[in-house]
């Protein structure tokens, strides 16, 4: 489902060149649940962002569902993100001026789904926020905001779900609820799930753990066989 071939990402700041990812090659099959772990600054979030087509690597190629996304122009990339990728951020990244319902409705509206409001409401009910649809992000707790973000990421039923430290800003019990929600979506809909985390116990729940250090793949091991869904 996801093929990463010799990807390097370098940035220039204050005249200095910094290598964020260094010749990374990975292959993630369809429906696999993968955790990417590593210390701060190891390039985890950057790798996840590149998989989602949020930025372009300095060199190398990234294949998503058979398409080299590094060759796509902005419009095609946007379409790909809309149809193929759901992204859950550590800081939720909800649009502050929209209600919970409207936040979830955005990808549905962009994809021109029919009856977006009903579907968004169903999604919010599914994540346990049926009573909070008209609330704005500032009126929701961190856990609730992240659940809205999960509902939004999954709104168009993308085959790939990318989660960047989804529990990083949550207390442990709220984090637990959110993780269960993400796992359930992966399980119920056969979504390929790539999870960036610091938390070894969370990584232990996945099928494969890829460890990054200084932008390089330090280890890549299967923790458990891929579940047949």
């Amino acid at each position: 489902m996801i093929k990463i071939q010799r990807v390097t990402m370098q940035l220039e700041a204050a005249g200095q060149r910094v290598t964020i990812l260094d010749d990374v090659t990975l292959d993630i099959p369809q429906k696999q649940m993968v955790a990417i772990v590593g210390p701060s600054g190891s390039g985890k979030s950057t790798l996840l962002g590149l998989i989602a087509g949020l930025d372009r690597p300095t060199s190398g190629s990234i294949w998503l569902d058979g398409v080299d996304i590094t060759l796509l122009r902005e419009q095609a990339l946007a379409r790909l993100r809309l149809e193929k990728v759901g992204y859950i951020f550590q800081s939720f990244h909800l649009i502050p001026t929209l209600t919970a319902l409207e936040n979830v409705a955005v990808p549905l509206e962009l994809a021109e789904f029919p009856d977006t409001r009903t579907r968004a409401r169903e999604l919010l009910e599914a994540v346990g926020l049926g009573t909070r649809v008209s609330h704005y992000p500032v009126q929701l707790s961190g856990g609730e905001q992240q659940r809205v973000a999960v509902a939004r990421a999954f709104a168009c039923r993308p085959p790939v779900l990318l989660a960047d430290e989804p529990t990083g800003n949550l207390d442990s019990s709220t984090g637990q609820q959110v993780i269960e929600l993400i796992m359930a979506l992966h399980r119920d809909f056969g979504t390929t799930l790539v999870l960036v985390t610091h938390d070894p116990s969370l990584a232990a729940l996945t099928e494969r753990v890829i460890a990054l250090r200084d932008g390089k793949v330090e280890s890549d091991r299967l923790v458990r066989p891929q579940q047949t869904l």
Partner: protein
Amino acid sequence: MTLPSTTPFWLLMAWRESRAAWRHFIFFVACIALGVGAVVGVSLFSANVERAVLKEARGLLGGDLEIRLSREMNEKGQAVLSDLARRGVQVTRVSELAAMASREVTSEGAQGTQLVELKAVEPLYPLYGRLKLEPDRPLWALLNPSEDRCPRPRCYGAVVQEALLFRLGLSIGSSIKIGDTLFMITGTVRTEPDRMANMFSLGPRVLVSQEGLAAAALVKPGSRVRERYLLKLSGMGDAQSLLYELRGRLLSESAKVSSYRDAQPQLKQFLEQLARYLGLVGLTALFVGGIGVAMSIQAFLREKFHSIAILKALGSDSRTVIQVYLTQAIGLGLLGGVIGLSIGVGLQDVLPRALAGLLETDLLQQVEFTSGFSTAAIGPLIKGLGLGIMTTLLFSVWPLLTIRNVKPAGIFRRDFEGAERVGHTVTGRFGQRLLISFRTDPLPAVAAVSIGAGLAALSVWQAGSLKIGLFFIGGLITAVIALMLSAQAFLKGLRLLGSPGPLVLRQALGNLHRPGSQTIGVMMSIGIGVMVIMTIGVIEHSLVRNIGANRPADSPTFFFIDIQPDQADRFSHLIHEQTGDVAPRLTPLVRSRVRAINGQSVRVEAETEQEEQAAQTREDKRKNWYLGREYVLTYLEELPKDNTIVKGAWWKPDHLFVGPQLSIEEDAAKHMGVNVGGTIEFEIQGISVTAEVTSIRKVEWGNFSTNFYMILSPGSLDGAPITYVATVRVPPRDEATLQAKVVVAFPNVTSINIGDVMETFTNVLERLALAIRAVALFCISAGALVMAAALTATRYRRLYEAVVLKAIGATRGFIAQAFAAEYALMGVVAGTVGIVMANALAWAVLRYILDLPWSLEPRLLGIGFFCTILLTLVVGFLSTYRILGQPPLAVLRHE
């Protein structure tokens, strides 16, 4: 309010974003509202005047048709008039001339004299329109008072403009002497329908009967009088066909026949021009507002950076996001436009007041001007709204293009902040960089060209002329670039300067040149406003100063006109007696029209419908003006002072002339198509005189002497009904005495005081400048709004800094001082650059349009500079004073 879920995404998002962010857009909406208000106010006013003039066209002309001559109709013409009367056409005669009125006459001379505009009428007057008189009685009754009120054997009434009563200290019932007759003032006239709407008037109006005028014995052969025969058809056929018939039948009379359709063409042209230039000042206000729009959007997008990145991360492309915010901008532009329409409707009531008194006659009352709503208002309203929305669109596009630069990875800005991706920096020379940038991304260049073209199109639309529109936008863009470069140079200078002086100044300078401060935009906006207002001021002052400076020390105090040949010697004697001076210089003159050039008959007025409809170029109109006007001819031995021969030769003294020779002014020769060796045939009071052109002259028109287009050789006008004009110079204290003596001795002679004429001119100029300044105020207000918008956009940053400074020990006074220094510096730069630009623009207008030298106006510029600083200080503190009182803890707790 919720929009249906079938609404397109861009519209849904635009609505949601506006719902949450209306506070951000108060200034956006205000900028557009103010600009649209200025444009609409001017257009509505001009549409209303045009409508009123059209409605009252017959009243303005005085009839369906008017026959105008510079003498009384001769027998042949009278026969035509009798024929018209037989056909059922009503005809009434109106004579207009300048005359002297005096309060009472004693052995010392006339006490209190005043130049007046005399109008003699017949019982049928007015054929159309209504005279507003006090008392409200028929005019004819007031002009012929009953004998019991008027003890003299034959009594004439006069209805006068109130100004005459004030100036001569008279009241209703008093008598005034005009010419040889005493008139009893029986009433005052407030408006008369057919008074020429003119910016200059020689004096107050006095209405008398034709019998009264005859008794006054003012009209002598060759007197300066305008005879008008007004015609009312009352359903007796078509006015236009009668117009052509009369033009044919009265050709030999040198009469000018016009129909109500072209009543007061100069007035229409004047109002059109005024509306056009006021409209362009209004458009400048709208464009300054556009800068405010661009800055508001820029500030808004800066805040929206994160949301845009999220939208992109969720799968939205740049085009969709731009569509969202463009829709929002246009919606806000529409809202601003609608508010602007109501401001414009309010302004159309204010403008007439600012303009009142600009025209000597109260034109607005004359045409029963109303500013109420009518179908004529629909056009200006739609145009105003269109201009508002288009301006919003054009000024939004550029900042909205920056949305393309927001990468979805911007969501991780903390990681990426300040970082550039490797391999994407374009290096090389400026030109190369520009070319590479264009090749890799042509959109910004395409957008810039489209915006420029769009602004030019709006300017042409508003100006109603391609040339003026392009000239305007060219000038404005040049001014904007100059302002921008100056502001940039100033900021660069600040950076180079480092951190000099006390902390307060360092803080102020820091605020000015830090990223996102929008200082350049503010300086540009305020600078444009300053430039517009100061340009008007400098031109007005230069005009007044130039006219004063041009008046030579030995320039005359009086022009005495209509001196009859048999009065010439006595007049010279009187002047010599009164002033002790040598005999005044008397110049003979006679009124004439051009009948033929080089043997070819001149025909200026259309005699058929087809001719009427044929398009006239500007050049044709100019040529017709030269051919159709009345010429005052003179004969002179010597070439007048300040005249130079540019072609041919002046006649030699004691030359024996075979026939009349003519020296013609160069512009007249050019437009009339006549050269040395050619001939011009003049019609002088029914007699024809043909002269050969022997020289072409250049004339210095502004030298306060009697100047002529046409000068004939001595002897050419023998036997013609000539009158004399005399120029006399006396000290100010003797002016009134001399005038009084002349009035008693020569009641038919009219004296024109140059000082009074100059004063009228200065007053008119001041009025005109006031009207333009009233609209220009919108420009400076728009600039102030832009500044307020910019300060509000950076309000949070300022608040945060202020509380941090307070937390570390700064006082409220310190912060206020830093703000004051910052705003004052903005004023200094905007004021300096605006004033420099204003002088450059004023110089160009004076030099190339008015042909006058530019002069430095230090006092005016000083006031302008001071007011600009005051403005930036006031606007700055009004926008930010709340920050000063914020308790630090409350703010820092939320950080």
